[in-house]
């Protein structure tokens, strides 16, 4: 015992008080910073709950905004349905395309020149501000009156799809790369054609990862406001026609937010609670799928 500590002291001189103090201070700082990082989340959640819960009622979910400044203000039914429709259709566009590009990258392009270029520009797309995508769709689809409409829900979906595409592609590429090559080779050796290997072996092994990535892309797109402002715009009535202007929760919040009317601001808080809850549910489902597939040993 004695000799061991003596030997230790001979090798390592004790840490000086100054060094020990610095070490302690930095540790405290790291603790503090983590606390500071969590604070805004707690504040935001607490604040929207305390302000928004009061706005929630049956009418809130079952009536459209009326637009009356004096009478009843109405709820956010059209915004909730609009968000689901727009984001749903965007997913319908972006997920097959995104997975297709990812399949090209992992199964065919690999390290080829075209594949590298596609990879680089998909990354570039991740960085493009959402409002610029909105501008682009406005210029190409809205102004041109494609489909016989100016502003329309599906054009909002197109803008969101541009936003989701790189997220879907990159996350799908990561999981597709995790599918062991031995599986592919085994299937090929059994005489399966390439496309059958993809459909029957590669995609099923990567399915849960692809679903997770797509759901996270959906969660991100659902909160976007900027690209919807000049593609789907802000309207009052509920519509199931994707070729009509369509309301959405973020756009509704944006519109109500600075109104000089407490009831409208109240509605914005209620809509915020609804939107955050929807996004959290999608995110949680994604994480659950991810965790379960990890527990099964595949990622």
């Amino acid at each position, binding site marked *: 015992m004695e000799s061991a500590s003596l030997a230790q002291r001979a090798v390592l001189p004790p840490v000086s008080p100054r060094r020990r103090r610095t070490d302690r201070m930095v*540790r405290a700082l790291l603790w503090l910073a983590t606390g500071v990082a969590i604070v805004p*989340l707690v504040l935001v959640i607490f*604040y929207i709950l305390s302000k928004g819960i009061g706005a929630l009622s049956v009418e809130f979910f079952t009536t459209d905004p009326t637009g009356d400044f004096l009478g009843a203000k109405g709820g956010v039914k059209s915004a909730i349905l609009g968000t689901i429709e727009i984001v749903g259709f965007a997913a319908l566009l972006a997920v097959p395309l995104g997975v297709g590009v990812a399949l090209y990258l992992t199964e065919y392009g690999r390290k080829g020149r*075209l594949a590298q270029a596609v990879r680089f520009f998909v990354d570039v797309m991740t960085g493009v*501000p959402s*409002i610029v995508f909105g501008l682009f769709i406005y210029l190409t689809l809205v102004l041109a009156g494609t489909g016989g409409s100016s502003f329309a829900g599906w054009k909002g979906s197109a803008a969101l799809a541009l936003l989701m595409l790189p997220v879907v592609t*990159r996350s799908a590429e990561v999981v597709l790369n995790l599918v062991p090559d031995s599986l592919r080779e085994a299937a090929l050796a059994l005489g399966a054609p390439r496309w059958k290997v993809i459909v029957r072996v590669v995609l099923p092994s990567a399915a849960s990862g692809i679903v997770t990535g797509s759901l996270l892309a959906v969660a991100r797109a659902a909160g976007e406001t*900027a690209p919807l402002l000049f593609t789907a715009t802000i309207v009052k009535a509920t519509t199931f026609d994707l070729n009509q202007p369509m309301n959405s929760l973020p756009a509704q919040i944006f519109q109500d937010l600075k109104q000089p009317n407490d009831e409208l601001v109240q509605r914005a808080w209620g809509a915020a609670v609804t939107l955050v809850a929807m996004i959290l549910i999608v995110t949680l489902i994604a994480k659950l799928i991810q965790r379960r597939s990890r527990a099964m040993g595949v990622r």
Partner: protein
Amino acid sequence: MEAGTQAAPGGGRSLDRSPLARLPDRVVRIGLTAISAAILLLLAYFFVKLALEARPVFEKFGVLNFVFENNWDVSKGIYGALPLLVGTLITSALALTIGVPVAVAVALFLTELCPRRARGSLTVLVDMLAAVPSVVYGLWAFYFLIPKLKPVEQWFADTFHFVPFVATENVAGPNYFIAGLILAIMILPIVSAISREVLSTVPADQKEASLALGATRWEMIRTSMLPYARRGIVGGSMLGLGRAIGETIAVTIVIGDNPILGHSIFDQGYTLAAVIANEFSEAASDPLHKAALIGAGLVLFVLTLLVNSVARLLVIRSERQGSKPIAMGV
């Protein structure tokens, strides 16, 4: 001639498929390649379309004058985007100054200090910051942050008036600083997630070696983790910067909508993205105004393109150094 020599159906070439059977394979390969190539074409078209639509304003004022002229006056039809560009740069710089140190500290805490049991839930909490939509951050900042912080900002502006760009007579409610703060909160989860990934690639023997040499935990972090992870952290911060530059709605709500260059970070201002979101509906009838907004969008696009390319390059290089791929931008 009967059975044996005639291309033996049961012989060596039994694996050959008829051209018809090979068709789906070809269709899938060509189809997927075409989709991928279409993405490149789409982006090229995207850029050209924006440039074409912005041409009227570039022709009238010249590209350089449009970008660097300090005068954005819609009523007079004069469009010089400098106040917007500078607003974007100020708010993003503030976001980085506030957000990156906190994000790196969080990443260090989670990889090095955090008790194992708390690590998972803390990570989820930090990641959840990214799940709150930007319009909700804006709503919260407008009704909570602005009134609560105003006295603090005024005190800061008065006490540290000698620091450049701080002094101001009356702190405005919505201002550059509030926008920067909101952006800092929004980029925190990305920067922290990438830093965490990069820090976790530091080889364990390197860390253990420095501990064995008698380094304290902090000295170990400083001498063997941070230098190793530096490039990745810088890359992650640049990705955060890209996000901050392009962020629209939250900033639009708290920036103050004033297209005149402020003298202090506590003055009202404007950013490229916010001006597009705010002025778009009124610009629909005025071709020059519309072109100016599209020009602003183009400047924004080019700016984020530059920042992101540098960021990717840095993160990829630091990824090569380690062995693990780093998930970016998800």
